[in-house]
């Protein structure tokens, strides 16, 4: 592990002795979607290195692989020769009946496909909730936001599924591999119009975003690089759902991109990008924003510690030839990651909030369609990022409307309460918070009858600390209900805590 031995000062690991309950809790929330008190205790017992390795080495956890036939591949497909003939005949003879029938068939397929993308959203949400490999899903979501592609333009759910699988396969793999794959990804090619690009009329969209948003960041390439890069990418297209390189549309002339020259193709373009230190720097900055703290996308002088940390991560990424694991391992082991300015400071994304609540508080999942709807209302509609820039994250998640949705989806999970009336699940499926207290009661049996200890424990577990005013309010609440933390009082305590502004942070 040469890379680990040569860690610089910025990446100094947290001393093993300082990895306790609070640190394990932090790691579970950031590297995944939070954990139960038991899971936190387990990680704290394992110590820093074993915990980080467990989270990163996802292949050691056996799960059922995603089935390729999970969804239908050909709801949206090119017309067959027969269909094309029929259409041409109908057009020529102006046979409105046939044309109407063909239109109706097309609309039926589009409706089915919209249903399938909705199923896919629920499928992914369930996966995040149930996976034993949370970091894999969390990185899949990272790449979805990084290589943002929206069904709104693609209108082919199967392409979105394939892209999602691409991100999952390479979730903790190699950045270079992902870039080589993304210029061959039908959804991306369609999203950024590369299927309309050819040697005579190169379309610059993919070349521009490949550098600006996917690898180098604004200002680290020239307009000439975009022009020549677009030429290198000509001929990269797809047929039906598969990548095709169409030789006759490819510009075979010589080009000069980011200092490389010759008869460059798309792969040469990606290689030229990977040779730039800025590529590692940019990816590491995005990773830092996702896992550590919300810093500006373009480096400025405001956060010198974060900047130094990101620079060292980038050096490590270059030494590791763009393998992600050493980088992510160093990040999760670093003292910096566990610092007071990092912990409990990040605004949870909608997915993190909701999936994290189910996983850590052990709430029922209730109706996935309701949860999926809430994701949309909170601004994170899966497979529908708002633009190629992805989700801005941080404070942009929060406004007065989304904050109510955030509070209300917690009341839904805990009690089945909907904005109007209760979910049908509310009667049969009742939240049981008792398992949360198991570790407390076994270590401290007296806590059962001392509600202030239960309140303190719950606050530390849910929001990471126990502010005195919150303790006092919640204690008074329990006292008003007969001093005993019964099942309903426990649910009410959790309900109140999840409405606190502090619960939006991790």
């Amino acid at each position, binding site marked *: 592990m040469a890379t680990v031995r040569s860690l610089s000062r910025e990446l100094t690991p947290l001393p093993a002795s300082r990895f306790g309950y609070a640190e394990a809790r932090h790691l579970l929330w950031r590297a995944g979607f939070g954990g139960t008190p038991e899971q936190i205790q387990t990680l704290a017992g394992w110590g820093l290195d074993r915990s980080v390795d467990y989270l990163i080495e996802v292949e050691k956890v056996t799960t059922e692989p995603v089935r390729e036939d999970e969804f239908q591949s050909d709801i949206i497909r090119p017309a067959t020769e027969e269909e094309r003939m029929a259409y041409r005949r109908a057009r020529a003879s102006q046979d*409105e*009946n046939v*044309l*109407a029938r063909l*239109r109706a068939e097309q609309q039926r397929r589009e409706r089915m496909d919209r249903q399938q993308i909705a199923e896919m959203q629920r499928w992914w949400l369930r996966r995040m909730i149930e996976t034993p490999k949370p970091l894999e899903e969390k990185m899949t979501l990272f790449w979805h936001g990084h290589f943002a592609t929206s069904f*709104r*333009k693609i209108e082919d759910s199967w392409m979105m599924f394939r892209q999602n699988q691409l991100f999952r396969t390479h979730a903790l793999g190699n950045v270079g591999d992902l870039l080589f794959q993304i210029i061959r990804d039908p959804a991306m090619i369609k999203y950024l119009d590369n299927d309309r690009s050819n040697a005579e009329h190169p379309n610059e969209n993919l070349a521009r975003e490949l550098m600006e948003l996917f690898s180098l960041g604004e200002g680290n390439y020239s307009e000439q690089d975009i022009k020549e890069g677009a030429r290198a990418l000509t001929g990269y297209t797809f047929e039906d759902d598969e990548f095709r390189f169409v030789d006759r549309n490819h510009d075979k002339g010589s080009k000069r991109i980011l200092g490389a020259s010759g008869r460059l193709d798309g792969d040469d373009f990606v290689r030229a990008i990977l040779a730039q230190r800025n590529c590692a720097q940019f990816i590491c900055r995005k990773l830092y924003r996702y896992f550590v703290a*919300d810093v500006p996308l373009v480096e400025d002088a405001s956060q010198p510690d974060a900047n130094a940390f990101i620079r060292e991560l980038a050096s490590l990424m270059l030494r590791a030839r763009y393998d992600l694991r050493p980088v992510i391992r160093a990040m999760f082991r670093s003292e910096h990651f566990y610092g007071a300015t990092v912990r*409990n*400071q*990040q*605004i949870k994304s909608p997915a993190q909030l909701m999936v994290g609540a189910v996983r850590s508080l052990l709430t029922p999942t209730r109706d996935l369609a309701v949860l999926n709807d809430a994701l*949309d*209302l909170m601004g994170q509609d899966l497979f529908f990022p*708002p*633009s190629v820039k992805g989700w801005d994250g*941080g*404070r*942009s998640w*929060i*406004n*007065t*409307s989304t*904050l*109510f949705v955030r*509070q*209300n989806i*917690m*009341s*839904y999970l805990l*009690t089945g*309460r*909907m*904005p*109007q009336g209760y979910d049908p699940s509310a009667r049969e499926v009742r939240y049981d918070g008792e398992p949360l207290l198991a570790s407390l009661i076994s270590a401290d049996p007296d806590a059962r009858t001392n509600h202030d200890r239960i309140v303190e424990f719950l606050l530390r577990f849910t929001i990471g600390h126990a*502010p005195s*005013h*919150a303790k006092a*309010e*919640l204690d*008074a*609440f329990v006292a*008003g*209900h007969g001093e005993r933390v019964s099942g309903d009082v426990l649910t*009410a305590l959790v*309900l*109140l*805590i999840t*409405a*606190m*502004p*502090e619960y*939006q*942070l991790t």
Partner: protein
Amino acid sequence: MPAPDPCAFTRRRFISNGLTLASAAIAAPAFLQRTALALPGLRPDLSSLPGVPQDKILVVVQLSGGNDGLNTVVPFGDPAYYRARPQIGIAQRDALVLSQEQGIGLHPAMTGVKGLYDDGLCCVVQGVGYPNPNRSHFTSMDIWHTADTSATGDGWLGRYFDSECCGHGKGESGSEEPQGQPGIAIGRTAPLAMQGRAIKPIAFESPALFRWTGQDVHESLHEPYDALVSAGVSDSVDPGSNAAFLMRTALDAQISSDLIRRAVDRGASRSYPGTPLGQQLAMVAAMINAGLNTRVYYVSHGGFDTHAGQGGPQGQHANLLRTLGDAMKAFYDDLKRQENAERVLSMSFSEFGRRVGQNNSGGTDHGTAAPMFMFGPMVRSGILGNHPSLKDLDDGDLKFHIDFRTVYAAVLKDWMGAEPKDILDQPWRPAPIIRTQG
């Protein structure tokens, strides 16, 4: 100047004593002061004083699905219209005549709009569109929302909000800068049109949903909720931190929620049709009446994608248009009673019109140019522009001759008092829609 304890101002006191708040704010710490200014405040003293310049309000009415413009504003004088629409065409005797000499009239179901037109409260903008029309619902809607034919970028009203509130990061929810809720959309989610960089609009289907539902679980949760969630920023928290930002937003949310719900509860007028659009506009009118400082309201009316069986003087499309007309009429009648009508401009649009010829299913397919309606006492009432020709077509579709961005420019410049070229990229010349004052 004694500084009151910030925690002493609970939400309840804010609400019960709104006017004291405004003066108390002078001595209050930053977060209270900000909130006091930021409140979409109840301002009964300012809502209808004659002669006092008042904030103008825009109400956008989105007709989703692609409204059939040709059966909305009917060219009954043109035989080509009846040739193209043998079954669904509106006969001259049925049309509500707007101009005998131009040979155009409204669909017979639009008596509400006709009433507004006759009272001088309606401007019909003819043949509105944009170059190289897109016939996808999504894309064309995005083009209208972004005011950009590439269908990308922030919303046009969002850019207006941003430009009014001094730039990125300032005025965002929970920030130190004074702001209100500049835009309120009635609906599940806020439309792209209102999404700015810094300013994000709020959206709710009804004010009853713009609140914490946990309080319905048990009444004893109210007190602790107020103390834990709506207490503002606690002393121990760094004011620049995300925690403080969230605490400010939570307080904002609670105050806005209380005000908006009280406004609607108190002001709900019974004179509106029971249609969803009628009820949305009733809520908007109640919020206007309560004096919220919101500048833009957004409502929508869907179902215009009439590929089959759209009907003629009666039927599917007729019902949609009746709903629109009756709701707008009730809205302006109500605003007049409130003495707020002069402050309110309404604008309806749809992502596209429909093809000239009817299809074989008694409906119409996606087309291009269509009329827009502008409502309010301050519009230049009448017909703006000629009806698009039914002979000079573009592959069976109408050619536009008023770019929708000139309408936006008029709304921005002549109504909201903003500089359109900062918001719309290009210096579009405002269409003559708003009466010039004085």
